[in-house]
Each structure stands twice: as C-alpha cells, then as structure tokens.
C-alpha cells in the first residue's frame, strides 16, 4: 500500500518534470536554453518515474534493468545535448535549409 502510494507520488512528480521539459522546449527562446529544458526531463523526470517503478519491480534483476535504462538515457541525453550544442555553436542556428 505504502509502496503504491510512493509510486504514485514519484510518478506524478516525474510527470511534472516532463511537462516542464515540454513547456520549456516550446517556450524558451533559443537552442541553448531549450537544452536545459530537455535535460530536466531526461535526468529528473525519467529518474523519478523509474524510482517510482522500482517499488513495483518483481526482483533485483528488474531493478537493475530499470537502473540500466536510466543510466543509458542519462548518457544519451548528455551526449545529445553536448553534440547539438557543439554543432549549433560551430554552424550557427539556422542552417537547416536544404
């Protein structure tokens, strides 16, 4: 019961971060600030949801899998943010027309 309640609370908190990430993606003025929005959702939003889901996991293997997913998404988010920022920095923001 407590586990369920914790799950619900953590997932709800995670959703808030996702919503904030999307809002930032839509509202922020340029790429660099939008990067921040993205990382919030990646790191914290998914992290909270996964934390919540761990309370429902069947065994240590499942927990490990969930943790692995989180680590992988963290790495992907970090790399993607870095790459996009770098490309924008070197090539400018508006070079998509082809």
């Amino acid at each position: 019961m407590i586990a369920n309640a914790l799950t619900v609370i953590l997932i709800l908190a995670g959703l808030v971060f996702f919503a904030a990430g999307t809002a930032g993606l839509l509202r922020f003025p340029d790429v660099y600030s939008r990067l921040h929005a993205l990382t919030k959702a990646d790191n914290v939003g998914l992290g909270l949801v996964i934390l919540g889901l761990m309370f429902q996991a069947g065994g240590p293997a499942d927990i490990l899998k969930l943790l692995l997913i989180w680590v992988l998404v963290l790495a992907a988010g970090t790399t993607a943010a870095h790459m996009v920022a770098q490309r924008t920095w070197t090539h400018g923001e508006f070079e998509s027309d082809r």
Partner: protein
Amino acid sequence: MSLFYLAAALFLLGTILLGLVRVLRGPGSGDRMLAAQLFGTTGVTILLLLSLALEASALVDVALVFALLAVVAAVAFVRQHGLPEPPDTPIHRQPPDTPGPERHHDDR
C-alpha cells in the same frame, strides 16, 4: 493501479504531440534534434508505464533498446561525412589535427 499508469502514459503521449510543434517550427535543425531526443526519453517512459499497465514485462526490453540506441541519431546528426565547416569557428582555432591524413587512409 494500472488505470493510473495508463493515464500517466496518456499524459506523456500528449506531451509528445505537443512537443511536435517544436519539430514543425524549428527553426534550426538543432531544435528539431533536441525535440526528437526528448521524444525518445518520453517514449522510454511510456513503454515502462505501459509494461505495468498492460502487464507485459517484455516491454521493459523494448524500453531498454530505445534507451540504448537513443544516442545514435544524435551522433549521426553531428558527426557526418564531409561536413563543410565554416572557418573561424571555435573548433578551427584548435590545432588542425583533423581528418586530412586519415581521410587518405580511409578512402582508398
């Protein structure tokens, strides 16, 4: 409980659809790539939630694969072949140990 997971998944699906506005508007390719990256993360989360809502544990594996390969598109986006690099940008101020000799080995 599964109703809650499903509702959460539906909410996240809604954020993806909202985020599509950024892909459509751009304006730069960086913005679009960022949005795609966010969708990837959101998709992983939706899959995890659905795995509980629909009681299908295999979906965790699907989420794992998405998480694993989320970075490929971003890397492809940045590190492409023959990208004409405008001079006088930060990367060019570094010592030019860039692809010159290596390309030689590479192509033939």
